[in-house]
């Protein structure tokens, strides 16, 4: 079976930053994503406890290289200073390229 190489963008951030990220996705017509609640420790201390609004989430999106640069640039420019957020990109293989245009 042949796997076609593409990118996976993973963002871990505070739950209240989710909306901003989804807005950026919409802006660059990224059509799908997966998110889930997580907890962990980082530069802003232990996160994901207590109030509902203080939780952390992880957003994963399979994305083509061209869109990836625009999306990451906008997230970095508009959100890195004000939000608890980190992101990384990994190389992955997919079967159906038409699903992740």
């Amino acid at each position, binding site marked *: 079976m042949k796997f076609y190489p593409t990118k996976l963008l993973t963002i871990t951030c505070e739950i*209240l930053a989710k909306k901003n990220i989804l807005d950026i996705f919409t802006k660059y017509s990224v059509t799908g994503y997966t998110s889930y609640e997580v907890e962990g420790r980082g530069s802003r201390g232990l996160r994901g406890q*207590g*109030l509902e609004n203080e939780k952390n989430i992880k957003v994963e999106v399979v994305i083509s290289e061209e869109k990836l640069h625009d999306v990451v640039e906008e997230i970095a420019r508009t959100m890195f200073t*004000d*939000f608890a957020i980190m992101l990384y990109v990994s190389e992955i293989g997919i079967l159906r390229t038409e699903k992740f245009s």
Partner: protein
Amino acid sequence: MDFLELIQSNLLTPIVLFFLFGIITARIKSDLKIPDAISEFLPIYLLAAIGLHGGIEMRNTGFTAMLAPMLVAIALSLLFTLNHYQILRRLGKFNIFDSYALASTYGAVGAVTFSVGISFLDNQGVSSEGYLAAILAVLEPLAFILAIFLTNMAVSKQLEEKKKSFGSMESKIDINSGETRSNLKQVLHESITGKAIVILLGSIVIGYIIGENGFSSISIVFDELFTGAIVIFLIEMGIIAGQRLGDIREVGLFLTSFAIIIPTFNGIIGVLVATILGLSVGGSVMFGLLLASASFIAAPAVLRHTIPQAKPSLYITSALGITFPYNIIVLLPIMFTLSSFIHNSESINLFHHVTNFLT
């Protein structure tokens, strides 16, 4: 003194004891925790109960009685928000974003504080006017809308100045100001359709429609269980406040004193104004509490989106870690004593009393 006794007896109520218990639980790093679903459910339940009671009583009293208190509360809330901003910006030397975020946190109302107040009055055998629930609903988004509006104004003013110095960048800046305008519209929509306001207004309307008769079938849930539900919720609040006690050092001395002095000032003004407006002993306490309380559940959700530059650790820690415990333990008895004192002495002629005291 009378009110010291009241503070003492207030300390020994289940609400305060369980709150303190929550703080201790967090300090000894116990793994005790109220399940997420329950701590998200309880504020909704408390607001529904407050709304139902308010609606039922408004059916008896009508709408005209609440008009003056409502307008005065709106005016005071806006005035206080501006006042907080000036204090924080000029005396506290906070940056513009933190100042507006904190100013609106303290200008807004705390629904949990309101619930505790109602149950405190119950304990004292005093009731309050039902329409205060409607005032709670109106005040909830107000301070935020003002702060967000003013922040946007200040930011676009700064952009304007930049625009003058870089004439060539005009087109890019225009796009930015368009964004802020749509942002404000979105904020208005979001804060009016926020879950707290929707459940509160919905319950007021339903309470108004069903009246006493319809309520009797659900009173076991919304009446008898009310204080018990607050107690469970306050364990959670105590745990969260306890986890944040360490952060108070970061908040600093200025904001710590602000978090105590401002609610006291606002609350006392509230009690006095409400008494002049003709509210009852309990109603004046609740009116004062509305103005004294700070928002810590709604505030982060609204402010994180609209003023993301402001540090949430400042406004959450001061509102939840300092002001909330102070309000429910110390300020409530103070306002209650004050309110009963001026309500009683009105008939005795206050001025006569004062002149007697002086001579």
